[in-house]
């Protein structure tokens, strides 16, 4: 018991938290995915709109309203004592883009959830992560009743860079969500190694 305790303390001092973003259009299943894989009930955290946000925030018709609260969902997966994965559902509306910059700081990678019935909703997220060279996978949430497309079709339709993984998933299903995260972490590892080699060569 004593040795177990000291081991725990050792892990505590080097606690490591990794961040994964879940992005995509409104209603595509971001909260559902976070909830399916998280070990805690999905928590919502609120961020007050900053001044930057206020200046671009169109509150036409509601002139007196000077603050808006943005809600972000997040969840946690504990890999072991001292190593946790945090998932953040990014706010869907375009006017909260400024929050993405903070969220994506130091992120391990991102999951872009897509719905094939309105694929264009995930274009902004794809552009965002490509532009900032943040590793991401596209996870196609297979809604019942939606026509199924192959991963290849989606990849071509989104004009993804070669190698960007496309995974078909069911955001409600824990195992399916886990698979998406595994693909992302594997891909992030490959991207990282490739960049290291690039910088050496």
């Amino acid at each position, binding site marked *: 018991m004593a040795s177990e305790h000291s081991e725990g303390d050792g892990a*505590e001092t080097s*606690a*490591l*938290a*990794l*961040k994964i973003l879940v992005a995509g259009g409104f209603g595509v299943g971001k909260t559902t995915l976070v909830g399916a*894989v998280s070990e*805690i009930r999905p*928590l*919502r*955290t*609120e*961020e*007050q709109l*900053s001044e930057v946000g206020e200046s671009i925030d169109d509150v036409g018709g509601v002139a007196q309203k000077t603050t808006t*609260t943005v809600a*972000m969902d*997040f969840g*946690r*997966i504990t*890999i*072991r004592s001292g*190593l*946790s*994965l*945090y998932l*953040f559902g990014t706010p869907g509306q375009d006017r909260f883009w400024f929050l993405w910059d*903070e*969220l994506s*700081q*130091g992120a*391990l990678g991102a999951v872009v959830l897509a719905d094939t019935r309105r694929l264009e909703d995930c274009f902004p997220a794809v552009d965002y992560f490509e532009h900032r060279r943040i590793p991401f996978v596209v996870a196609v949430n297979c809604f019942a009743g939606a026509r199924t497309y192959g991963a290849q079709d989606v990849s071509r339709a989104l004009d993804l860079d070669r190698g960007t993984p496309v995974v078909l998933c069911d955001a409600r299903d*824990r195992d399916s969500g*886990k698979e998406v*995260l*595994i693909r992302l*972490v*594997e891909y*992030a*590892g490959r991207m*990282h*190694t490739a960049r290291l080699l690039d910088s050496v060569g």
Partner: protein
Amino acid sequence: MRKLRGDDPPEPGAQWYDAEAGPLVRPYAMTGGRTSPGPSGVRFDLIALVSLDTAAPETGDDTALGPEHRALIELCRIETQSVAELAADADLPVGVVRVLLGDLLELGVVKVTRPVPPAQLPDEKILREVIDGLRAL
């Protein structure tokens, strides 16, 4: 729905505000109007991990601490928590929590573990561990 009461005596416990009025205390009132953490100027990442400093001085009678400070201390006492979790559990905006944590950090009550720097992804061994851990869930 709010109604103007005429001559009716107010009911005991009746409140003039309701849930629609929003929080009765403006969030940044809890920070004395400050919107960024004190002199140390640290910007707490959402996943920065906060734990109680075991060597911390006793804060029992410290009047510099408000009820929200104490609420955060109590949450950290349960387990090490991320800034995001603290905000959600304490039901406070992240910006407010950052200011309050700045105070606690300066008082030496808490320790904060910064997340991995942006350009520096964790090494392969840790990613392997994450993948194996996810598989085992």
